[in-house]
């Protein structure tokens, strides 16, 4: 086929026309493939969020059983002047049990009694005890108290245990179910927002388990991470961007930073275990060690973000300062750094969000222990939100399924909040130089 031949090139146009139909189909298929990819990602995210949110809902409300309680001072062996220590040791359990027996006087058999007593949570006696310690005048009075219900009762009320199943397939037996229904009819069962979940530490009992310990633990860990990684990362970024000479040592540092950004997080956990815990004998399970490990992990992220923020500051600003006789150091600290700060902060928040969600390295340094108390300082043993998720996800009791999902919701809430701040900062200070 020669190009000069007009007849042939007419034919070529025809040929192209003929092929076009096929090619446009291909084009459409290709486009659909792209759309499918995006749709998969969006769909997956939706399913994940809906699934977790629906699983989490039950954890945000809590079933309560209202019982009339007779705080007989003599039976408790207490009076208004009793010391706190005496009150701590007093037998409030019997009082609650008496109240339950009074409600259902027909229960006499030992086994049945035990089932009856398990209507209220194991924590009910502590709840009552704390009330009395707070207000000793209650002693000798008869009062009505809303006790936390056991997680099985909770499950029945929320419908996650089906009442219509045959007894053999049901976790809650007929007798217990009838008690629950009696209480329901007499209006003694109520549900309310589960404040307890946000105000207490971990527990082996699903209904008593709260997330406050993990939130505080995460907070301490992040504080340590921030205090260490921010100044170091900014200093490193300033040095590399403004002062570093071009030599092999600096190249080596840069390679290291880029590589560290891609090292699996669990390897940082190994570093923490071998160096900080074994070699420097720092406390296990403590936010301070977790914070150090996470700061080493987030350093590359913040350094890389800070460097690009510093790089974006126009040279004219530096020259202006230098032209007035400011030294290099003065021009950097007085002008470049303030101008780059919004970008640096955005990078830092993103690094912190990454640190907040990180689990694996903290498992290595023992933050996976079961800890009930709320940590008071950075050296107290504690756990963090993602590890709380991991721990609860591993627990067999079905009540923890909702707790796990709820903990995830809390974790995601903090992450979203942090990212929103980062986006806000970026938008607010976005400068076109």
């Amino acid at each position: 086929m020669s190009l000069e031949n007009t007849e042939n090139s007419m034919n070529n146009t025809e040929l192209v026309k003929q092929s076009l139909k096929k090619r446009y189909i291909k084009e459409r298929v290709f486009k659909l493939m792209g759309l499918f990819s995006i749709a998969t990602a969006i769909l997956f995210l939706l399913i994940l969020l809906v699934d977790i949110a629906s699983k989490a809902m039950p954890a945000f409300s809590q079933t309560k059983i209202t019982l009339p309680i007779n705080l007989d001072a003599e039976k408790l062996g207490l009076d208004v002047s009793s010391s706190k220590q005496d009150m701590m040791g007093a037998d409030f359990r019997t009082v609650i049990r008496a109240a339950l027996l009074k409600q259902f006087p027909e229960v006499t058999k030992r086994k049945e009694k035990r089932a009856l007593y398990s209507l209220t949570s194991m924590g009910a006696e502590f709840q009552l005890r704390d009330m009395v310690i707070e207000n000793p005048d209650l002693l000798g009075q008869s009062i009505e108290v809303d006790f936390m219900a056991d997680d099985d009762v909770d499950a029945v009320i929320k419908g996650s245990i089906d009442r219509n199943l045959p007894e053999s397939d049901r976790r809650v037996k007929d007798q217990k179910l009838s008690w629950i229904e009696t209480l329901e009819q007499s209006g003694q069962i109520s549900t309310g927002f589960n404040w307890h979940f946000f105000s207490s530490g971990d527990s082996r009992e699903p209904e008593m388990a709260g997330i406050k310990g993990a939130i505080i633990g995460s907070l301490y860990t992040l504080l340590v991470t921030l205090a260490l990684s921010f100044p170091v990362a900014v200093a490193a970024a300033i040095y590399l961007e403004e002062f570093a000479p071009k030599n092999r040592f600096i190249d080596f540092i840069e390679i290291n930073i880029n590589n560290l950004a891609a090292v699996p997080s669990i390897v940082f956990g190994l570093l923490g275990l071998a160096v900080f815990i074994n070699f420097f004998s720092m406390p296990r399970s403590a936010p301070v060690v977790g914070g150090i490990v996470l700061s080493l992990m987030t350093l590359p992220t913040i350094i890389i973000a800070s460097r690009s923020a510093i790089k974006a500051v126009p040279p004219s600003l530096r020259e202006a300062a230098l032209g007035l006789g400011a030294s290099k150091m003065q021009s950097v600290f007085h002008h470049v750094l303030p101008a780059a700060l919004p970008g640096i902060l955005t990078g830092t928040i993103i690094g912190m969000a990454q640190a907040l969600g990180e689990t694996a390295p903290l498992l290595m340094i023992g933050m996976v222990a079961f800890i009930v108390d709320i940590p008071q300082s950075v050296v107290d043993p504690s756990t963090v939100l993602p590890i709380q998720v991991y721990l609860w996800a591993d627990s067999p009791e079905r009540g923890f399924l909702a707790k796990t999902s709820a903990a995830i919701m809390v974790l995601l809430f903090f992450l979203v909040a942090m990212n929103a701040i980062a986006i806000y900062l970026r938008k607010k200070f976005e400068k076109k130089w």
Partner: protein
Amino acid sequence: MNEAVLNELAEPPTGVNAPPETEDSLNIEYTDTVGQPMCENAKFRTKNVNVFYADNQAIHDVSLDIGAHQVIALIGPSGCGKSTYLRTLNRMNDTIDICRVEGQILLDEQDIYAKKQDPVLLRARVGMVFQKPNPFPKSIYDNVAYGPKIHGLTRNKSELDDLVEEALIKAGLFQEVKDRLHAPGTGLSGGQQQRLCIARTIAVQPEVILMDEPASALDPIATAKIEELINELKENFTIVIVTHSMQQAARVSQRTAYFHMGRLIEVGETDQIFTNPAHELTEKYITGRFG
């Protein structure tokens, strides 16, 4: 930053957009500088200055004196090295790693490239105003006060206030901004920003002010104000100005130096250069045949 500056400065000297018919004239044998490169009562004396970017020579053997309390204009086609030469005078070229300066540059008979010379102190004595207005993203007041603050020029707040006011007055900006001294300097118009940058430079009370095409980014009215200002400032300062505009050079300067491809072709009284250039290249440039 170095790369950016470099791109601006190190345009290869061959990049002159010369029309083909002047191609021959560009190949004229270079002779020594024509005119009077030396002068009495010199503030700066530069002798045989060569500047290299890596292996690329940007300035060839320039010798030029800069007289005290007068304005000297450096003119020439773009890429001719006039900005590079200007930046050697307060060692702004130090910020570019690959830049190397040879020769002798004396300020008040002292070598500014001597080992013990502190470039920071030098830049406080030889201030600089840049092509694009570059106020700090701070208030007008802080922009002007910055220099005096870092150099410890004042003892207390009221002295500093006076100094800032004086600098703004000298720069002809005070009347326009006196009610909003604490508004950001970046909110001013381009011409005001440039006068702010001049005020900022004056506040350090330098001996020499280098101006790198200070009006090239401004409109004609703002330019006129800047030129007026330059005329007033020469009472107190020695001014070296790089400019693209020959009219501007003619209006503000007493002496003019013509650069071409990294060489200093001709220096002389401004009147003489513009009315009666001695060198063929100068004449071609001034008559607008290339550049």
